């Protein structure tokens, strides 16, 4: 840009018309600005695309199709001795309840006079989720007096039928599908016409535990939410204070020497360590050496803490570096100690950067599966862990793990669940970040 020729006295230009040089620079300015805006727009578009794929695929997980039928709880099958002894009733397995439900459905079909060509036994049996028999059994175990009565049971229907009402399954695909048939779907339509079958809001997706491959309709993220929550508690309680403390030491107190250089390089290097390696470390250090239990959120939390620390430290150090030295001088000059100058003045000014590091670090920690693979948290867990602190030591799953697991499953219904779990994960993340974002806005200032 040094090619603009200029002879002695500058020509006096009007302010209202830009001279060529300025025009060039203004064009560069406009380009620069456009790049900036473009960058934001690109990011936003990507965000919208990704979010819309997630939402498009996942919101349906929050709705589920239920069937309400009268079920005759046949005493002959459920309590052979007839004395309602809980021990005896316990001996009756879910298989029997499955049969009872099947009979009930057949009865209903007969009662309502539904006739569908080509409807096989398998279609009728397969209509009801396998989860239903377990629920029914639990209901009976809780109240043995029900035996012999006819109760109304609200049961989950098979994932394919559910998919039919969510547009995932069509008559054509059902014809090819080994797990359903057009006849089954017609039956569902008929039941729907009778008002017995409906697709409703599904709380249990948020509360119930994972389910096996055969019953996608029953799978939920309850335990995963708890597990993630517990882990995040650990991460939040450890990573943020430790990370900030370490950065403060390195940036403000540590003498500039070989040793601190080593630490500095070390930390940025840790950020580049693949997360699964932290899993190896966690397995070796926390489970094999320290003897902490497997599949426990405490171990997951610790591993994720170690993994998040470098992110937080790097962000915090950068933020501390950016605080002008005159602020430190000012504090020291009125007799504040180094510690006071840092905690009273420098840290608040570095807060936005620290919070950003926290947001990004936690986002990463919340979404990470690989290290959990090795410490046993990528697992099928059905028992709800108790409240902390004890719950921290009990097996739990985690949201990204649930997503990872579900995307691997054979039944396509799990894809929808996985997207649903991702939505939950994002909501979880947003809730977590909200506080940080608000705080960050409070601390932001220019000087």
């Amino acid at each position, binding site marked *: 840009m040094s090619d603009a020729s200029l002879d002695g006295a500058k020509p006096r230009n009007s302010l209202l018309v830009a001279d060529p040089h300025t025009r060039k620079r203004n064009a560069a300015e406009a380009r620069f600005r456009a790049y900036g805006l473009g960058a934001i727009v690109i990011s936003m578009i990507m965000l919208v695309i990704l979010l819309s794929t997630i939402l498009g695929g996942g919101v349906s997980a929050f709705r589920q199709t239920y069937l309400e039928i009268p079920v005759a709880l046949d005493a002959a099958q459920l309590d052979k001795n007839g004395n309602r002894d809980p021990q005896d009733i316990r001996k009756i397995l879910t298989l029997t309840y499955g049969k009872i439900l099947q009979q009930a459905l057949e009865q209903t079909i007969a009662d309502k006079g539904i006739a569908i060509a080509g409807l096989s036994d398998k279609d009728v049996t397969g209509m009801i989720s396998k989860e239903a028999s377990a629920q029914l059994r639990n209901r009976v175990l809780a109240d043995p007096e029900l035996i012999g009565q006819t109760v109304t049971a609200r049961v989950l229907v098979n994932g394919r039928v559910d998919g039919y009402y969510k547009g995932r399954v069509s008559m054509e695909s059902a014809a*090819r599908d080994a*797990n359903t048939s057009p006849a089954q779907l017609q039956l569902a339509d008929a039941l729907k016409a009778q008002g017995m079958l409906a697709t409703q809001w599904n709380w249990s997706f948020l509360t119930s535990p994972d389910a*096996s491959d055969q019953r996608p309709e029953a799978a939920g993220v309850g335990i995963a939410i708890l597990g993630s929550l517990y882990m995040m508690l650990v991460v939040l309680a450890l990573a943020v204070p430790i990370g900030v403390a370490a950065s403060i030491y390195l940036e403000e107190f540590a003498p500039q020497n070989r040793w601190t250089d080593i630490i500095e390089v070390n930390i940025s290097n840790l950020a580049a360590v693949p997360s699964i390696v932290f899993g190896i470390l966690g397995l070796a250090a926390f489970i094999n050496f320290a003897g902490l239990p*497997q599949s426990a959120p405490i171990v997951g939390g610790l591993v994720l803490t170690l993994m998040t620390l470098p992110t937080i430290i790097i962000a915090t150090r950068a933020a501390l570096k950016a605080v002008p030295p005159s602020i430190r001088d000012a504090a020291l000059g009125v007799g504040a100690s180094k510690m006071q100058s840092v905690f009273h003045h420098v840290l608040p000014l570095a807060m936005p950067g620290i919070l950003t590091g926290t947001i990004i670090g936690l986002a990463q920690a919340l979404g990470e599966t690989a290290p959990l*693979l090795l410490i046993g948290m990528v697992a099928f*867990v059905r*028992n709800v862990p108790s409240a902390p602190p004890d719950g921290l030591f009990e097996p739990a799953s985690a949201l990204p793990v649930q997503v990872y697991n579900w995307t691997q499953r*054979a039944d396509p219904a799990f894809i929808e669940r996985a997207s649903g779990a991702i939505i939950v994960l994002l909501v979880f993340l947003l809730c977590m970040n909200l506080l940080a974002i608000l705080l960050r806005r409070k601390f932001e200032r220019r000087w």
Partner: protein
Amino acid sequence: REQIQVSGSSTVLPYATIVAEAFGENTDFPTPVVESGGSSAGLKKFCEGVGENTTDIANASRAIKDSEIEACKANGVTDIMEVRIGYDGIVFASDIAGNDFQFTPADWFNALAAEVVKDGKVVANPHTKWSEIRADLPEQEILAFVPGTKHGTREVFEEKVIAAGCEESGAAEVFKAEKGEDEAESACMALRTDGKSIDIDGDYTETLARIQSAKNGIGIFGLSFYENNTDKLKVATIAGVQPSTESIASGEYPVSRPLFFYVKKQHIGTIPGLKEFTEFFVSDELAGAEGPLAAYGLVADPELAATQAAVADEKTMATAQ
């Protein structure tokens, strides 16, 4: 610790979860925790030692190796019960709207091997269309999604399809003549790397997704996965046999592998329900031909009764040998 800890193969995982779920529902024991992370990692954890913070059961899509038994022993895991739960069929499937395929192992060898025999000479694989291999195969680009080298399925595929095809097509003889015994074996199993054979490090869902984005691809799946996705996939026959639980159980369909789990006998008694879970797993109601595992795609073990007896007796591998 109250609940049983199971770790290991992701192929066995679906079956193990079905059993664990049923076990939790029908007994007073808590539902076992079933991890997935691969046979190797599962067995490694299993062999880490004896005690509360080690796993009780390792699932594996292959038999435990001698070196692993040694490693186990070194860590004090001496009493291991081996339980075979059944077989996993391996099938070839393509997009439902595409062509039909009837394969022989030799076709696969000729399609995917790095080097094939053409007119009696060893040449780098020149085939680009299936029809070039055998005229009655459809004229379609060769594009195969094979399991990555981490998968046990890959081993089965290499041995039972590619190596078998190598023999069948007569290429093995030529290789032997040209390269000698040792080289020939690895030449038989070397796959081409020019993008016709694509390794999949993920799982079957990834293979399925890849087929959906490249419709002319043929993927390798577990039988159970295929059975859950018959509306999207079309299965190919091998040597004229349609894969199904029956044809695999009878041994007609050649490509399958046994699935196992290993129980740490030293934990029986200290971990509540371990024995019960093991028995429950192999019971007829679950692992039998009519049980839910078979319904999901597991090929029931014809020798299930023997397995049940061994489990009842808590027979370890040492005592069995």
